[in-house]
């Protein structure tokens, strides 16, 4: 009896260990999150008076073309990035883990390289390559005969952003897939081979089902990353031309810190947050498989 109570007392040490995190997280993550809901109901320029406007900011959002444009631009960017990155990184990981390939580490490191570079530096380099006399433009003119205005046309600029994003993150997800692939017991494949399963058979019946958890993880994390893109657009286009690359984070930043509409910007943040929340929750519901 006495021993149990001593043991119970010991367990209270847990509070001591988690206290710093609780304090910091409450003040700097949870409170701001809740505060953004409150702020979204006000009209405020930070210096002047704060006036309560109810849901007017949200009404303005849904009426205003600028927000809708940003939302669609972000969805477009996210959708394309996720599809392309998942596709390429999956096939690269399958190719690199194939028994036919040696020098896996060298090839893997080459593809992984962009992941470790500074995002702003990447944006600057690609900005140069996208110039009219830049490397990529010249290559396209000479090889394909295509004269593409990468960053100055509203039709192509969003795709240019996707290209850079894919280049940046493919290696990251490829490594995640490779880790998942190496976890699949070789015995499965041996057995399938004995049963006469070909490459596609093994892929469909063994590889893809075994990779389910990895796929969900790649998918969710890629959506969250891409949805929050900021540096690329900020450095390369500042949202232009004609707002065709003005993603949500950029709009949140501009509305608050350039136009000093803090309440309006908070309203955008709220929509941003709710979108990702709905996405994450449905994802985890659909694939509830013990990944997290």
């Amino acid at each position: 009896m006495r021993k149990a109570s001593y043991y119970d007392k010991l367990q209270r040490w847990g509070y001591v260990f988690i206290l710093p995190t609780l304090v910091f997280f409450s003040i700097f993550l949870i409170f701001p999150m809740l505060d953004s809901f409150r702020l979204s109901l006000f009209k405020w320029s930070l210096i002047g008076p704060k006036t309560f406007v109810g849901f007017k900011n949200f009404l303005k959002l849904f009426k205003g073309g600028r927000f809708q444009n940003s939302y669609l631009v972000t969805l477009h960017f996210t959708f394309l990035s996720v599809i392309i990155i998942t596709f390429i990184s999956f096939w690269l990981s399958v190719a690199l883990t194939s028994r036919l390939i040696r020098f896996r580490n060298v090839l893997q490191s080459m593809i992984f390289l962009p992941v470790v570079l500074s995002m702003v530096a990447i944006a600057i380099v690609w900005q140069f390559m996208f110039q009219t006399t830049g490397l990529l433009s010249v290559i396209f003119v000479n090889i394909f005969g295509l004269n593409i205005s990468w960053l100055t046309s509203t039709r192509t600029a969003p795709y240019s952003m996707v290209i850079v994003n894919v280049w940046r993150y493919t290696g990251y997800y490829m490594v995640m897939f490779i880790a998942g692939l190496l976890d699949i017991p070789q015995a499965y494949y041996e057995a399938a081979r004995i049963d006469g399963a070909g490459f596609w058979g093994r892929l469909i019946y063994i590889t893809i089902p075994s990779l389910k958890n990895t796929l969900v993880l790649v998918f969710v994390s890629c959506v969250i990353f891409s949805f929050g893109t900021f540096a690329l657009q900020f450095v390369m286009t500042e949202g232009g031309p004609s707002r065709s690359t003005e993603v949500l984070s950029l709009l949140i930043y501009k509305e608050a810190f350039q136009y000093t509409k803090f309440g309006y910007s908070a309203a955008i943040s709220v929509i941003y947050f709710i979108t990702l929340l709905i996405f994450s929750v449905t994802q985890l519901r659909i694939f509830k498989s013990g990944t997290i």
Partner: protein
Amino acid sequence: MGISNRAKIRMIKIALYITLIVIGLVFIFPFIWMVLSSFKLNKDVLSIPIKIFPPTWNFKSYYDAFHYSDYDFPRYFLNSFIVAIFAVLLCLFLSITAGYGFAKYKFKGNNLLFTIVLSTILIPFQAIIVPLFILVRKLGMQNSYLGLIIPEGLTAFGVFLMRQFFYSVPDEVIESARIDGANELCIFWKISLPMAKTAVFALTIFHAQWVWNLLVWPLIVISTPEMRTLPQAIALFSGVYFTPYPEQLAISVGACLPTLILFLVLSKNFVQGITLTGLKR
């Protein structure tokens, strides 16, 4: 049949190698171009016909980039290092202690509190920059290292990762240390912490990289030139239309070097880290 099958495999092998090598080159080429172009003269960077290698090597671009009158890049490097080091230390301190507390103690509310902490993973940084800025301003941390370090040092993922790791430390080890009379802090410091080295390492690498790259927060919090971080300064520097190209590229190469060196030295840990830190912002 046997021979043709072998020939087929060989063909596949060759095709696979060619594809992979081409893709690999595509992935490293922009970086190589960046390094080479940083040594070119201004007129050669975007000249036609294209010059891959610098016709005349211009080493002055690096010197110039670090001796600009309006941009004190050595200072920005220092700022970025200070912020990265302390933000990572804060992140490690919080993640390790909380992860250990949640994993090894059965106190009331453990699950509930952990769920609350973990759910902050769903709060995207971009979605709280406005209220966070207002808070930081109220606390008088605007335009200070502290205002950068604290918000950049928090990640629920670290807590999650460390908790998973401490689960693998056997309870018996802790119990026997208790019987020997060791107090809780001593057990944590001397026994449990050394076992979590791999996870600590992975978390360090990834968080350092995230902090080193972060652009949006410094843009908001920092208002005077001498407090700028590197990404912020580079973005401003390249936004000015008369900045010479080689200088822009030279400073970009400089910004890539710390993480690149980290990668070259610890590439195994990088890969290990990704598999551990599957879901990082």
